[in-house]
């Protein structure tokens, strides 16, 4: 296809977190996005969750700003209630036929006042709450939905089923938005590429009676349980038994419901996320009610992700959650009162019968049939597990060129992997459509900002009900009335959900009408929602920084939920403090800086090369820094991916592509010795192999420095030559060395150096790796006896297939968790391995020709130096710590620096490649803008107070403060303290040091903190003296 004919817009199918991420990255990278969502609002499954693991953030809170961002983006066209019928054409120019189903409510007119819903006479089970609560026939999917427009459920609506009847909503709708004649329509979209983020559905355990789902009310799915735990859920977050609303005392989680099962369903794969979400839900319960007994019945706890193992350990040791390794065959009722009986065999082979109040079925993920059909119709290849068939080397490419996939449609995965996938798909699209970047995007200039610096503060206070989250505890009317009495407060309003789209519009209107110039939002936490409100201020034409949030939800209503009077009084205090602070708020201008259109990629492994190649394809200059003499990194030791793809061939092709690309300059035997600058304009000093130094200017950095392998100290490694580490074994195996070639008996030992006290993390890829090696050995000679000694087999996702395959081939798996690690000793010509069997509880003895140790993956020790240079954090295990484990998995708090591959955490090749593409997407998104605006949350010098004593210079961790010389009016040479606006990160250490209040972080000036303090202590009686 010629470049001229390509279309600069993209279709993203699926409005879940993965699709949203793809849409945002693409829209910010210069492509117009049609975001198609089959339900009435975007968000996917995440809004239904209570919290996310392992950060325990509130799910709604972290996704809400992204929802609004999608909703507001000028280059994202959200099409809800829309399904894709067909896709024709080819990469660069597709024609997509979509069907917009009728909403029966005119989105342009609906003001989401909710009167329709409150008057609608028809109640139906609410699918958002998994049928545990009711909603009306005219409804919004959830209170923070984007777009916040009502929709009519045509199955439930009385009028739509019986013309002449009802129609109340149409009669009372203030803007007359109801349209019963809405027929929906087919539309054709022309796009250059398609991203399929079709998502998943939870497994329906009601398909079999065994678990009692649908039969006994106290058997719920994990998703229902999320709703029970959620403050917005059917019980308002209070945990009670569905049968009798009595408190819950004993809970059992049953794992692998609808996963790893080819009997009761046909889902052989592992759903990847259930172990972690079960732990999360269990911890949530234990946090709220430590006396509740919680047991998780499992087969293998699969917690291979970053910080997951610690989470698991914390659950077990600190939270007293009981983990029982036994899969529960079924649930039976006990008595008439709703109790449930579980019968199982414990680790010792004894029968145990337990009674619990509540059984939570940890249901797996599967692709909805409709999505499978769509994929088939379009011609996308699917795996036997009914997920999109992808290559590990191209983890977001479908079998059709120009059509990409991400999220759980690519196989069961958690939120960060879905977010990474969304970004990775965006990067791949951006590379494809680079010639037509910016051809269809539009930019809407914000309204002109009025100068309020000389105006007296006119403060607007917006008190949020947050549904019942705040209003259920705090008397919001009283708080609002009180706010009106505070000095300088010119306007007070109350809103059901201040963060909803319609309230934002209302705020804009009120700011303009009442000429407000300072805003206080008394709602939730600024950490998640301030950026949202800042945009609102911007659209209202006042400076976005003239806002302060009073955190009356997280830090008030929720922590004093039993003391409404106290909470109301405290809410008033918090509002008073916010008002006091905001009146000292000043307008700030973001700093605009131009961007160097080049990227420094550190590390020439697969992750680094993938990022480099994608960015070069996106048209950016790339400097790829490799410390050795060849590209390839750890992948040089790999033979095949879990799905059997040949790594050396892929590596050779990737290497050639990188070396041949005109925009990539590879610096071999090079290391970074110093780095300076900031987002958009970094300057790094490279030392090359010839010990020459060279300076490179670049706009962004991708860190892909890989990891190291653990050299075992256990299992007689290094003492018995037949005991080797897996990477060594692979080499021997590849060359068919005699020890391997003649070997008849092989023992693999898992978790060598991982998941112990020293390294409490899982190295993630070793189970898969050992099983692959074992299968290969067995295939070569079926009479070989192969044993894998493990603690937990963690073949997550569709990798479970190779675990099943290995067992079918007769490979023996022995769990050594219960009886302790195996003992190794030399015996004649081979190695004697002693281990106890976990089922028979008897000692086993294996004469092995070789023992292969699955050694841990360690953080690269060189990361420390790099972290210091770029001012990046490392986690406790020495891996780079991303900005947010869930939603910002490749970014840092330091702008312009991204991470990918093993430098972030041990992971298999396909995840490294995904992450590398995601990092490239983020870098590309940054560079696609000619200039960027930096947050002006920086220290400012008050010339009236600063006397250039220079005390602040040395304390600044970023060397952002300098003394500049100038001549004063009398020609005397003077010095003055200046702050580099780009280097400064706004920590305020200078502010804490200065004895004269000569330097303050904007938005947190000492005067403002003092004002807050005074407001907080207004009612407190001062000590008997004026000063102590």
């Amino acid at each position, binding site marked *: 296809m010629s470049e001229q004919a390509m279309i600069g817009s993209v279709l993203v199918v699926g409005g879940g977190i993965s699709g949203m991420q793809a849409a945002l990255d693409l829209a910010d990278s210069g492509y117009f996005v049609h975001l198609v969502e089959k339900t009435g609002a975007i968000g996917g499954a995440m809004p239904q969750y209570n919290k996310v693991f392992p950060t325990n953030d509130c799910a709604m809170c972290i996704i809400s700003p992204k929802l609004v961002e999608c909703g507001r983006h000028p280059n994202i066209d959200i099409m809800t209630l829309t399904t894709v019928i067909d896709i024709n054409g080819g990469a660069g120019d597709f024609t997509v036929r979509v069907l917009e189903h009728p909403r029966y409510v005119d989105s342009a007119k609906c003001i989401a006042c909710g009167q329709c819903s409150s008057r609608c006479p028809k109640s139906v089970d609410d699918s958002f709450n998994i049928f545990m609560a009711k909603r009306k026939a005219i409804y919004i999917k959830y209170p923070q939905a984007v777009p916040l427009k009502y929709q009519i459920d045509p199955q439930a609506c009385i009028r739509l089923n019986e013309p002449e009847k009802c129609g109340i909503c149409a009669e009372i709708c203030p803007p007359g938005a109801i349209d019963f004649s809405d027929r929906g329509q087919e539309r054709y979209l022309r796009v250059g590429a398609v991203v399929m983020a079709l998502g998943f559905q939870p497994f329906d355990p009601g398909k079999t009676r065994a678990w009692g789902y649908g039969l006994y009310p106290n058997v719920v799915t994990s998703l229902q349980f999320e709703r029970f735990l959620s403050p917005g859920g059917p019980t308002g977050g209070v945990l009670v038994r569905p049968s009798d609303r009595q408190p819950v005392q004993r809970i059992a989680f049953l794992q692998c419901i609808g996963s790893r099962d080819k009997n009761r369903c046909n889902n052989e794969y592992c759903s990847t996320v259930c172990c972690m979400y079960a732990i999360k839900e269990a911890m949530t319960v234990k946090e709220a009610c430590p006396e509740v007994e919680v047991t998780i019945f499992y087969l293998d706890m699969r917690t291979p992700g970053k910080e997951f193992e610690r989470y698991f350990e914390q659950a077990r040791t600190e939270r007293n959650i009981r983990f029982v390794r036994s899969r529960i065959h079924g649930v039976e009722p006990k008595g008439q009162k709703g109790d449930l009986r579980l019968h199982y065999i414990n680790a010792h082979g004894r029968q145990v019968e337990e009674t619990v109040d509540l059984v939570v079925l940890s249901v797996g993920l599967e692709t909805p049939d409709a999505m499978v059909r769509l994929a088939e119709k379009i011609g996308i290849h699917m795996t036997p597990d009914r997920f999109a068939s992808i290559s590990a080397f191209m983890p977001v490419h479908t079998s059709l060129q120009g059509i990409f996939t991400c999220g759980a449609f690519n196989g069961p995965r958690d939120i960060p992997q879905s977010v990474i996938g969304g970004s990775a798909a965006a990067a791949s699209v951006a590379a494809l459509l680079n010639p037509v970047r910016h051809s269809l995007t539009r930019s809407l200039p914000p309204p002109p900002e009025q100068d309020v610096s000389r105006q007296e503060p006119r403060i607007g206070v917006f008190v949020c009900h947050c549904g019942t989250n705040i209003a259920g505890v705090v008397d919001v009317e009283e708080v609002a009335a009180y706010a009106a009495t505070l000095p300088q407060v010119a306007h007070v309003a109350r809103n059901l959900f201040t963060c909803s789209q319609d309230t934002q519009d209302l705020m804009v209107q009120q700011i303009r009408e009442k000429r407000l110039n300072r805003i206080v939002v008394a709602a939730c936490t600024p950490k998640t929602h301030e950026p949202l409100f800042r945009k609102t201020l911007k659209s209202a034409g006042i400076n976005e920084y003239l806002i302060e949030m009073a955190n009356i939800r997280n830090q008030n209503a929720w922590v004093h939920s039993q003391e409404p009077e106290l909470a109301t009084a405290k809410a008033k205090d918090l509002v008073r403090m916010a008002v006091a602070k905001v009146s000292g708020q000043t307008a700030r201008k973001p700093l605009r800086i131009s961007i160097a259109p080049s990227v420094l990629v550190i590390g020439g492994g697969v992750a680094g090369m993938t990022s480099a190649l994608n960015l070069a394809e996106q048209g950016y200059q790339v400097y790829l820094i490799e410390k050795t003499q060849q590209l390839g990194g750890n992948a040089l030791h790999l033979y095949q991916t879990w799905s059997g793809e040949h790594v050396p061939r892929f590596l050779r092709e990737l290497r050639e592509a990188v070396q041949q690309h005109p925009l990539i300059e590879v610096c071999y035997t090079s290391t970074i010795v110093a780095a300076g600058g900031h987002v958009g304009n970094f300057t790094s000093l490279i030392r090359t192999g010839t010990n020459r130094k060279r300076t490179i200017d670049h706009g962004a950095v991708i860190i892909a420095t890989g990891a190291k392998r653990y050299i075992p100290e256990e299992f007689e490694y290094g003492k018995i030559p037949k005991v080797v580490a897996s990477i060594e074994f692979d080499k021997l195996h590849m060359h068919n060395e005699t020890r391997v070639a003649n070997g008849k008996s092989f023992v693999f030992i898992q978790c060598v150096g991982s998941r112990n006290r020293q390294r409490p993390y899982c190295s993630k890829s070793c189970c898969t790796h050992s099983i692959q090696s074992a299968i290969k050995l067995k295939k070569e000679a079926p009479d070989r006896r192969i044993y894998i000694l493990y603690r937990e087999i963690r073949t997550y996702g569709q990798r479970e297939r190779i675990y099943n395959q290995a067992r079918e081939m007769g490979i023996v798996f022995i769990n050594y968790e219960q009886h302790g690690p195996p003992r190794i000793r030399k015996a004649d010509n081979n190695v004697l391995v002693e281990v106890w069997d976990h089922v028979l509880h008897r000692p086993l003895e294996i004469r092995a020709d070789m023992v292969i140790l699955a050694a841990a993956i360690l953080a690269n020790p060189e990361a420390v130096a790099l972290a210091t240079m770029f001012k990046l954090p490392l986690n406790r295990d020495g891996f780079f710590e991303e900005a947010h484990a869930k939603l910002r998995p490749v970014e840092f708090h330091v702008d312009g620096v991204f991470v990918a591959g093993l430098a972030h955490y041990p992971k298999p090749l396909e995840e490294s490649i995904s992450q590398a593409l995601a990092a490239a997407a983020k870098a590309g998104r940054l560079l696609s803008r000619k200039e960027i605006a930096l947050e002006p949350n920086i220290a400012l010098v008050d010339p009236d107070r600063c*006397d250039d004593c*220079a*005390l602040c210079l040395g304390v600044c961790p970023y060397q952002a403060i300098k003394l500049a010389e100038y001549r004063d009016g009398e020609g005397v040479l003077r010095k003055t303290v200046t702050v580099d606006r780009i280097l400064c990160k706004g920590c305020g250490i200078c502010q804490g*040091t200065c*004895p*004269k209040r000569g330097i303050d972080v904007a938005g947190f000036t000492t005067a403002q903190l003092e004002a807050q303090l005074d407001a907080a202590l207004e009612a407190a009686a001062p000590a008997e003296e004026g000063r102590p």
Partner: protein
Amino acid sequence: MSETRRPRLCCHWLHACSGCELALLNGGDLFLGLLQLVDIVHFPLLLDYKYASGAEGKPDLPAAEIGLVSGGVASKNQLEVLRTLRGQCRILVAFGTCASHGGIPALRNQWTAEQTWNTVFQEDERSCSGEFEYEKWLDRVYAIDEQVEVDLLLPGCPPRPETIVATVAALAAGHQPQLAEKSVCEHCPTVRTGTGRMSVRRFLANADYDPEAPVDSMRCLLEQGLLCMGPVTVGGCGGREMPLCIRARVPCRGCYGPVRRQGNQLLDLLNVLASKGIDHRAIVDRRSLLRFSGAHGLLKPNIREG
């Protein structure tokens, strides 16, 4: 009262050493010039004027437009005089560091009045014996703004003569006096880089400098590790010129009191040291950093020692 009448100046001392008054006199010609601008109605150093008790046993002090009060308040009698002065003067100026922040006498706030009494007047062999009528002490030494409302602080130990005269002149003319608001560092010409050695040298240690070279080539004394109080002390000792101690190449002792009126020289300096990673416990007798500003409750008897 004729319209041409000059504003009256009342100058009184409380718990003071008369250094401030002498500084004014040291102004020489400047002082003489001042006489053209104000009528001095009360000035104990110049005029041996006894203020007898008035009608109701109150001190008999003349009314004035401008009152300069040096010294802090340490006795009941002084307090009574101060209150009278406040009543008689339209503008009351805390004259010198003692009046503004307690000054040297307030060092005794580290002990209770009783402890001081016993130490000085009972235990010390050199103390006078015999029967004397002592003034009745207050519990501690107060800055005058702790007891009455004060319109202006004119700190310094003593204040610079030029500044005193200029201040009175400005007040007499009805202007806002121009006083230093920034710290000693403002006019300190030493070389500062923002970094420095991470230890504290003894206060008496000499600074490193080339005696031949001008001061502006000398390294900042604090950065040299000398406990210079410049950054936490309000400037003015050198006028718009180099601070006096720096001129002598010794560290600032903090005699003008805190740079912010509410500031705490001890806390601020320790904070600076702490921020720079210096162990503040290396300082012997940290409380001596409040040697000029021990009023306002910043120095208190150490109850643990007591």
